[in-house]
């Protein structure tokens, strides 16, 4: 279909005067970059914990929201609307997380005459709750896992449905996400306690105890389809992403394309995703998630926002998803038709977190004392940090996204390993070394992954524990440590560094080199 159709007069694109970015971290910078490239002025907002955050430093206009807790800052829709109006902005980009999937906020924007860069509130309401999304999937003729399409009214209903579809089954919170309110049940005897646990966990996490039940697919792959829909009834899919490498239901590594999806399955999934989006009156960027079992796929849920892992799709399609989101929200027609979308090469993304894999993946906020970032061919880094910044303890631990792009999957893995070796973050612990171990694992290299792959590796002994450095490295590290230590002890005639804290030592060292 040609894409430059003329539009009715009342639907002429209207460029934004200014965009408010209602987020923080790397995604706020990502959106700011798109605005700059499109010459659209933008405003950022910050909490007290983020006064020195990069999304404030990079902005030309920035306003304080409130205290550090998200409920008093980044989740305050009323304040965001007030600031948008005060700054003379006419659109809000919500990024991901925070208010991005909050239909009430999207509606408040609509009522205030401010464009929410995302789907309409009605589409979010129709597809957000997982039970409603399952009903929409049925209406759109999409395959989904057997089970209920509305909340379970009672434990008796759970028993009945589980009996019909057969064990193992999965209980899930309708309002769920991130693995909360989820329970796998392998036999009837365990259903009651799991049902109650899922209900109470859902109530606590989401304020709703609605739980539904579906057939558990064993060792599925997580495959998702990126869709883009304009406000003139056109919708395309941009191929798939595979996000099977997860730890406790949280994505860790994503890639595009999947190592196992062929053109036929891709177009089946893509067309199903487009049918779902169209049936709900969906616009802007969205992602339809599926579970893949062999070559059968089942609808899982729809994410009604831009996703963390969107860069891998950008690299293999050559499209800028954030710019397209803005153009769609301005009322422009999609500038590309389905048959013009080509996938080229392979992209892999690692989510770099401030966490310590050697200490139970505990968070590691704190000051970044030194930072050396990778570069060179095929490397993209969407980062939200800088040297000298103190990563606050108030928000999620994502520091940066490292993305490698190469002609083939194998070359992309090699490129990512090379970039990981160039990447050094000091002062806090990160999962950089953990990625090296996964990327070198034979099953990952063979594309032999499913959503339980990483948890099994961590539980078992297959993933080699962090190795002791080889003899040569130990010798070099000893010499290097001696060089560093002798420089600091000659600088200040104090007793050996052992007895002093890191802060004092750092201060002394700064004094030496200044």
């Amino acid at each position, binding site marked *: 279909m040609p894409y430059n159709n003329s539009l009715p007069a009342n639907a002429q694109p209207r460029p934004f005067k200014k965009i408010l970015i209602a987020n923080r971290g790397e995604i706020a910078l990502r959106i700011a970059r798109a605005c700059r490239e499109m010459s659209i002025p933008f405003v950022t907002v910050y909490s007290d914990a983020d006064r020195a955050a990069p999304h404030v430093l990079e902005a030309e206009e920035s306003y304080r929201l409130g205290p550090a807790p998200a409920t008093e800052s980044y989740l305050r829709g009323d304040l965001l609307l007030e600031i948008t109006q005060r700054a003379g902005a006419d659109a809000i980009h919500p990024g991901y997380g925070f208010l991005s999937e909050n239909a009430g906020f999207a509606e408040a924007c609509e009522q205030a005459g401010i464009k929410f860069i995302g789907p309409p509130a009605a589409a979010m309401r129709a597809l957000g709750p997982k039970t409603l999304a399952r009903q929409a999937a049925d209406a759109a003729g999409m395959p989904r896992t057997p089970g209920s399409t509305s909340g379970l009214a009672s434990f008796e209903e759970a028993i009945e449905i589980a009996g019909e579809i057969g064990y193992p089954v999965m209980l899930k919170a309708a309002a769920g996400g991130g693995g909360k309110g989820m329970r796998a049940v392998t036999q009837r005897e365990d259903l009651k306690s799991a049902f109650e646990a899922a209900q109470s966990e859902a109530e606590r996490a989401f304020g709703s105890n609605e739980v539904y039940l579906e057939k558990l697919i064993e060792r599925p792959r997580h495959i998702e389809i990126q869709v883009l829909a304009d406000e003139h009834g056109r919708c395309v899919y941009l191929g798939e992403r595979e996000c099977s490498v997860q730890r406790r239901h949280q994505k860790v590594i994503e890639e595009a394309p999947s190592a196992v999806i062929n053109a036929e399955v891709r177009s089946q999934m893509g067309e199903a995703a487009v049918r779902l989006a169209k049936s709900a009156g969906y616009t802007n960027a969205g992602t339809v998630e599926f579970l893949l079992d062999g070559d059968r796929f089942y609808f899982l849920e729809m994410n009604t926002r831009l996703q963390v892992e969107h860069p891998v799709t950008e690299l293999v399609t050559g499209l800028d998803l954030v710019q397209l989101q803005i153009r769609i929200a301005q009322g422009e027609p999609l500038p590309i038709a389905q048959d013009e979308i080509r996938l080229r090469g392979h992209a892999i993304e690692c989510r770099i977190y401030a966490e*310590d894999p050697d200490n139970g993946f505990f968070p590691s906020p704190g000051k970044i004392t030194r930072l050396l970032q990778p570069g060179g061919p095929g490397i993209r880094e969407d980062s939200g940090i800088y040297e000298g910044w103190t990563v606050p303890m108030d928000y*999620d631990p994502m520091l940066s996204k490292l993305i490698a792009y190469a002609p083939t999957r194998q070359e992309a893995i090699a490129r990512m390993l090379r970039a990981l070796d160039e990447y050094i973050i000091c002062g806090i612990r990160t999962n950089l070394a953990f990625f090296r171990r996964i990327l070198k694992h034979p099953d990952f290299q063979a594309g032999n992954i499913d959503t339980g792959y990483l948890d099994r590796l961590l539980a078992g002994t297959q993933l080699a524990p962090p190795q002791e450095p080889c003899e040569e490295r130990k010798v070099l590290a*000893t010499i*290097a440590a001696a060089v560093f230590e002798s420089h600091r002890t000659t600088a200040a005639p104090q007793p050996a560094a052992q007895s002093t804290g890191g802060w004092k030592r*750092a201060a002394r060292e700064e004094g030496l080199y200044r």
Partner: protein
Amino acid sequence: MKLHIQIAGKTRSVDYKPGASTVTLDGEVLEVHALVLRPGILSLIVEGRAWRVVLDDGVDESAVHLAGERVAYNLDDPRSLKARRTHAGDADGPIHIKASMPGRVVRVLAQQGDAVEAHQGIIVIEAMKMQNELKSPRSGHLAELRVSPGDTVASGDVLAVIE
């Protein structure tokens, strides 16, 4: 100057003077060229092999990064060794409940003076949307409670003492 540096359980003696072209490692003399590029970043050439080494001064330990690997080290000085030994000896003595991560105290589950059971939760700390409940490793009584809700703690800080 002579230093004793411990890596992966093994201590080596190293003699190096800033600016010198050799280093003596366990009695063996090696040719080195060390150039500190900026604080904590070192170009090190040892017998012709070149390395970039970055110093990682955490609050809890020191480490160097080289060739994609992070290697933790300890400066082994006799006084601290002794201190460590005396400390290790008192397994039946008071137990320190330490912060497992930097964070904020969100809840305190026992009061000073309370009797506590083994595995009983004492303090909950939170960071980056993750909560961690610190438990008493054995039964006893809560002799000291050093924090209250809202306090910010560093990794390794002693938050409570069980006797």
